[in-house]
């Protein structure tokens, strides 16, 4: 789902949502959905008049510098998003370029460099590790194996965080490897919701197409279950695995019904849409809860 139907309810999530559209070919669809019909007078607002003095910051750091009113004005005058798209391209800003290059997940909304955000990720992971009392415990030999184990784990986390980014293949949740390990938990879930929403990118026209697409979507679900998900705290990781197993079960049932012609193509399409919609909503709600 890339159009206005995927607009987050929380206005603070709009900048990220809009930015991802601005660097994609789907911006035109959004503008199409929101524009006033030809022949109806539009106001004379410009990008500069909406953003005011914040325009250079927008071109440097993205839309999160705008307030709610300004974001709504942009959506009320959607053709101005094309102006923003052009200006963002010509601004040569690392922030927008990272978004456009698909390295969206390696840039934080604050425009931090990839290295910085990665460092923050490592630091926060370290903070979340079980704390060990200082003092006596460090000199107690019985804890040395524990320390060695902890060091090994930290090394493993370091290797994981610094591994070369694998080339993401497939679509939907199968692209889970494209998400940076340094993402904040809420951002990570938001990105997962966007990946889940990729179900809506294509409308299968035959049962065979639908089956194929369902199997691919199911594969993505399995990849998510098996993924280490270092972005999440253990309890959230467990929550996500449980949810994923439920969705995977729903998808399996639907695939079986479709394979054995127990369900019509139209009904199966509707059910698939409902499952994908549930996945997206649950992930977005959880992202919101954690933000």
């Amino acid at each position, binding site marked *: 789902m890339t*159009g*206005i*139907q995927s*607009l*987050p*309810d929380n*206005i603070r999530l709009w900048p990220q949502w809009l930015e991802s559209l*601005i*660097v*994609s*070919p*789907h*911006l*035109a*669809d959004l*503008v*199409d*959905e*929101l*524009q*006033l*019909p*030809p*022949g*109806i*007078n539009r*106001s004379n607002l410009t990008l500069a008049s909406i953003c005011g003095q914040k325009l250079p910051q927008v071109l440097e750091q993205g839309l999160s510098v705008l307030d709610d*009113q300004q974001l*709504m*004005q942009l*959506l*009320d005058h959607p*053709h101005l998003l*094309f102006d923003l*798209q*052009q200006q963002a*391209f*010509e601004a*040569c800003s690392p922030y927008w*370029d990272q978004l*456009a*290059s*698909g390295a969206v997940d390696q840039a934080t909304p604050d425009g931090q460099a990839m290295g910085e955000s990665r460092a923050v990720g490592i630091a926060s992971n370290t903070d979340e590790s079980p704390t060990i009392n200082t003092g006596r415990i460090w000199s107690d030999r019985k804890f040395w194996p524990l320390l060695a184990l902890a060091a090994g784990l930290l090394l493993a986390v370091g290797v994981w965080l610094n591994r070369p980014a694998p080339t993401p293949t497939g679509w939907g949740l199968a692209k889970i490897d494209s998400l940076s390990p340094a993402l904040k938990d809420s951002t990570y879930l938001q990105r997962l919701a966007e990946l889940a929403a990729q179900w809506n990118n294509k409308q299968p026209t035959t049962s065979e197409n639908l089956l194929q697409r369902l199997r691919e979507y199911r594969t993505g679900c399995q990849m998510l279950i098996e993924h280490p998900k270092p972005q999440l705290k253990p309890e959230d990781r467990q929550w996500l695995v449980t949810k994923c197993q439920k969705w995977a079960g729903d998808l399996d049932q639907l695939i079986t019904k479709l394979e054995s012609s127990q369900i019509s193509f139209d009904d199966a399409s509707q059910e698939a849409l409902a499952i994908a919609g549930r996945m997206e909503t649950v992930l977005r709600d959880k992202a919101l809860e954690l933000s």
Partner: protein
Amino acid sequence: MMRGACNHDSDAIVQHDERYRRWMVALAARYVRNDAEEVIHDVFSEVHLNKRTCDFTVKAEPSWRAYLRRMASSRSIDRLRARKNRQEVAWPSNDFDVEETTQSSDDSAERLEWIAKCAESLSSRHREAFELRAGGLSSAEVAERMGIAVTKVYVYYSEAMKAIKERVEGKLA
């Protein structure tokens, strides 16, 4: 890298294209949607063959991007015009600048009349959101007046627009 691209260094060309391709496709999609990839492929071919780009240096990155952006726009509009000549494009396009130059005032009047008629067939909420927005209220004002979330206003409006477009296109087809 850019100088390399000008000298037809294949690695530099690949790097150049990877760096700008997604941006360029996004820019071209404003005009040609599904043909954007193809248009940008042609633009890059043209850019790499164009000797004039050979004095480009990294210092001139902003002007290089402006040049690329103009290329993306002009080649996309060329493609759009070629499509229009084959009558493949129906109203409305997302681009007012392109559309308005090719619409007669009679067409506009007919469309407005049809829009008004089509709006009558919408559900009351959709019609209300559509009429208030088209009447000049901001989405925030419409939300307040209808007592709904602003997100819902955008959804109602876009659904209304979609329904109207389908009807108008059906009429004009």
